[in-house]
Every structure is written in structure tokens, then in C-alpha cells.
């Protein structure tokens, strides 16, 4: 007879990871662990370890790193998980995304990403009020054609963290892409433009950004009707 195992066993530690992020941690962690172990090499082992940690973090709801830097996504500002299947091979999508300067092409709320060095980049987001919010981010983990993870550096205006994962979709459908993004108010409180930026970011917006990424990769452009001819009644 099998016994029901609670999925998120209670621990003595505080829960500081939000529910969907926990699920993602478990899934992604399990995937990375399995994959890492299968590869067996050093890099693979690191992946397995990182994966194991993610499983821990997801199943306990506690993140040591979050604890250290004082983040709690359990009371997060914005957290988004989205996935999309794109009819292109993994390596094409990975290299387009890894060239971070391309990101504003499909993320309309990001005005510019300036690459500083191999790991670090400077991000500029425009807010609905027109004021810019800027931060530096670094790549915290990557594995060619598998995943890219990034995070804003401490003491930024905004705490932003993200991960994008690439895997070959079944049945010659191209690549399945999974994106996980968190935007957080910094621990020391946020300035008005940052709050405005956060208020403007939504699930739907991120979904549209991924759709644009898909459109660019599959068709070479983002379809639009902006600027097309239309009738106007006299006086309109």
C-alpha cells in the first residue's frame, strides 16, 4: 500500500519561496539533476548538484540564498512562468537569447541591454511614466543549449531574476522554451518609477514578449498593422 506523501513537507525553516516558483524549482531541479547525473562529467555533476538544490528549495519552500540576501518571493512583487514551443532548433534560439543585446527586440519593456563582459550586463527598462529604471545583472548559471539564468546585482533599483530553459520538443516541433522571471521590490523600499514598472509588468505582457520572440525566430519579423492605411470619417 502506498502512503500519501505531502508534496511540500513542513520544515523548521521559513517559507520564502512562492508556490509557483517552488513547483518550478522542483521540476527544473529534478530535470537538471537527472540530466547532470546522466552526463557524469564535472559540468554535469555541477548541474546535478544545482538541480538537487533546486529540488530542496522547491520542496521545502526555503531558499538559503534568498535568506542571505533578504528576499522573499513568497511575498514577491511579480513572478512569471511561461512556456512556448518554437519551430526552430535549440541552438539557434539559445544563441539569439544568449546574445543579451537582442532582448529588447522582443521584450518591449526593456529598452536596452548593454553587455559589459561575459557575465555582466546593464539593463534599462522604460516605465509607463517615461522614467527609466536601470540595473546591472549577471549571468548566474548557463549551459549551452540548455539554460541561461540571470540575476540583478545587489543594491540595484530593482531585484530581477530570470531563467530560460531550452529543450527539444517531441515530434519535430522544434524547441520548448520555459521562462521563469521574478521582479522584486528591493529590500530598502522602492522608488516610484520602480513601482510603476512593476505595476505595468503582467503575465500577459511576458506572454506577448515570448510570442514576439517566437515570431522573430520563426518568421524573421513581428507581424504588425501599425501604420497601415485606414479610413477616417471627416473630422475624425
Amino acid at each position, binding site marked *: 500500500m502506498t502512503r500519501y506523501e505531502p508534496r511540500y513537507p513542513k520544515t523548521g525553516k521559513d517559507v520564502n519561496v512562492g508556490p509557483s516558483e517552488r513547483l518550478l524549482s522542483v521540476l527544473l531541479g529534478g530535470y537538471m539533476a537527472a540530466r547532470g547525473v546522466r552526463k557524469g562529467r564535472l559540468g554535469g555533476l555541477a548541474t546535478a548538484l544545482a538541480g538537487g538544490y533546486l529540488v530542496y528549495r522547491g520542496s521545502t519552500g526555503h531558499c538559503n540564498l534568498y535568506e542571505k540576501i533578504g528576499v522573499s518571493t513568497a511575498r514577491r512583487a511579480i513572478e512569471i512562468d511561461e512556456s512556448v514551443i518554437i519551430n526552430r532548433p535549440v541552438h539557434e534560439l539559445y544563441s539569439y537569447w544568449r546574445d543579451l543585446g537582442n532582448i529588447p527586440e522582443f521584450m518591449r519593456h526593456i529598452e536596452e541591454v548593454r553587455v559589459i563582459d561575459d557575465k555582466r550586463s546593464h539593463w534599462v527598462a522604460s516605465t509607463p511614466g517615461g522614467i527609466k529604471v536601470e540595473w546591472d545583472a549577471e549571468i548566474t548559471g548557463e549551459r549551452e543549449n540548455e539554460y541561461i539564468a540571470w540575476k540583478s546585482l545587489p543594491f540595484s533599483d530593482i531585484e530581477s531574476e530570470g531563467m530560460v530553459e531550452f529543450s527539444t520538443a517531441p515530434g519535430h516541433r522544434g524547441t520548448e522554451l520555459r521562462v521563469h522571471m521574478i521582479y522584486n521590490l528591493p529590500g530598502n523600499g522602492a522608488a516610484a518609477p520602480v513601482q510603476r514598472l512593476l505595476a505595468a509588468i503582467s503575465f500577459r505582457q511576458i506572454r506577448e514578449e515570448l510570442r514576439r520572440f517566437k515570431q522573430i525566430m520563426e518568421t524573421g519579423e513581428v507581424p504588425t498593422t501599425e501604420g497601415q492605411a*485606414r479610413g477616417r470619417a471627416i473630422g475624425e
Partner: protein
Amino acid sequence: MKALCWYGKRDLRVMEVPEPEILGPRDAIVQVSLSAVCGSDLHLYNGHVPSMERGDILGHEFVGTVVDVGAGVEGFRPGDRVAVPFTISCGRCFFCEREMWSLCDNSNPNAYAAEALYGYSPAGIYGYSHLFGGYAGGQAEYVRVPFADSGLLKLPEGVSDEKAVLLCDVFPTGYMAAENCSIQEGDTVAVWGAGPVGLLAMKSAFLLGAERVIAIDRFHERLGLASRFADAVTLNYEDVDVDEALRDITGGMGPDACIDAVGMEAHGKGHGRVYDAVKNKLRAETDRPTALRQAILACRKGGTVSIAGAYAGYIDKVPVGAAFNKGITIKGGQTHVQKYMPRLLDLVEDGKADPSDVITHSFGLEEGPVAYEVFKHKEDGCVKVVLRP
């Protein structure tokens, strides 16, 4: 340039608007030489399709000459005579690669809105509301054609505009409706609606091997055309009980396949008509499925109901019990035009089919508003209207 614009229910105006420009690398600009009015345009005209905006340029069936192409367009250049499929399709997504062109994943800039209504978004369509992308249509002097390198049909010299304009929508739509019936030897196919779509579905059913085709409508001229043009047995539903007649003609078995070439604005009689009218007014139902209900009830056991007529929203009192317990297959959808254009062009060139036989009226573009009225009321034996800019 002049363009026929939608300004509200039964309010069309010919307007002077700016000429279209290339907006994307795979765009082309086509100078329209002939456009046509479709039964689908009537749904817009009568205010049945949501998300139309004042000033929208109508028209999704048009042929003409390429006058400009974007930097990314290969295979076409200014001077080429083309027929433009009404479905806008990228040619590179999961759906386009599998020939489901009307389901293209990438061509609807307002996909999020369609997703809210349909779960997932179909392809963009010219001049067919903002739910389908809000693209300016071709009932104009010029039109912008996105993804011009995917699916435009180059026209040989011998094929007239009149023949070609029916390859943009109606002939492929009738053909796909018949193909969806999986016609076998000896099959009887019943077609509700003897408009252009119905007539070409009848013709196609024979091309695909049907033994017998039955046309159902109430307009004498259209039924006459069904008999002359498509060799169909005709039933006027104002004179006969359609269900009984179909049973009788098919030796008590029912038609093997039933095509709904009527769609959301079916004309109704009796209880059903009153029911739909009340529900429509209360906004509890958006479409009127008289023909679809009849088709499901009339269809033989294990047969197919093929839906070519367009639906936009919700319908009520559809006999699902009959469909389920008779083991009926239901198929339908916007036409995968690009899939059928080349083979239908071959049929036209070989003289095996002349779809332009359904054209009864021709107007200048400036007379567009009149043309819609004539077509709407099927006045003066009107079956298919073309507009010349």
C-alpha cells in the same frame, strides 16, 4: 487611394485614404485589379462579427499586380500578376508547415484577443475584424500583403481576373468542404446554401467522386444555378420538408455527408427562428445555426457534417445527442487556402472547372455600398459580386 470602409452595421463608405506602405521585410504592395464580396463580408456588414472598428478597409478576395516588395521577399517582384489567399500565413510555423494555413501561429498581431475567445488564435485575415488581426482589406486600389513570399499564387496569362479571384477564397473553401466529407464511391452529399461557397462545394463534391449532390436553399435563381452549374438535385426548403425529402432521395438512409455552406446568419423558420431571435437579442447566443442543426439531424449514421459556413461565437440547441449517437464526424474551419490554390488553378487552366460561372454582378469600387445591399438581399438574381477599382 479609394477604399471601401466599414463604419458600422450596414454603413459602408468609399473613402480617400493614404496608400499602403511596406511595414515588414516580407511585405508586398499589390495594386488590385479585381476584388469580390464574400458571404463572410455580409457577416461584418450585418454586425455579427465583434471587434470591427470605424474606418476598417474591407475585402479578403482580390487579385492584382505586385508593385513593391520588402527586402525579404524572394520569388516575387513588381509586375507579377497574383491572386492573394485570404488567410495570412507565415509559412514557417508548426501549422503552416503542416498545411493548416488558416491556423498560422504568427500572423495575428491581436492573437491575445482571439485567445481570450477561442483558447488559441487562428491566422490573421484581411479586412475581417480586429480579432483576426485588423489587417486592411483589398476592396481598395492598393493593399499591403504580409508574408508575400509564402503562398501568393502567380497567375498565368491565360487566367482571367474573374476566374482568379475565386481562387482567393470561394473555390478553395468549397473544395475543402467537399474534401472534409471523405467522399467514397456512391456517396450522396447534401449541401445547405446555394451561394458561391455552396455551389463550389457541390462542384467539388463531384470532382472528388460523389454519386449525387443535393442543393438546399430558398432562392430560385440560386437553385437553378445549382442544377445547371453543379448538376445538383435541388430542394427549396420553403416548398418541401427537407428532412423527409432527403430521406426519400437516399432510400431511407440519409446523405453520407452534409455540408453547411450557410453559416451564422442562417434564415430560419418556426420555433427555431423565434428561439434564436430571442436568444440573440438577449446576447445569450451570437449565431443562428438553423442549417447546422438540420444537417446533423439529416445526416446518415456514421456520416460526416462538414462546416464551411462561418461561425463567430456561441450557438444553442445543437443536437449533440444526435451527432454522438449516430457516430457523426464533424469537420470545419477557415479554409487552408494556400493548400488548394495550385491544384485548383490547374483545374481551371485545364478547363475542368470554371468558378467564374457564379459571378452575376460587377460594380465599380465607388458603388461598393450598393453592391453589398444587392448581394445581401440576393436582389436581381445576385449570386456573386465583384468590384473593379
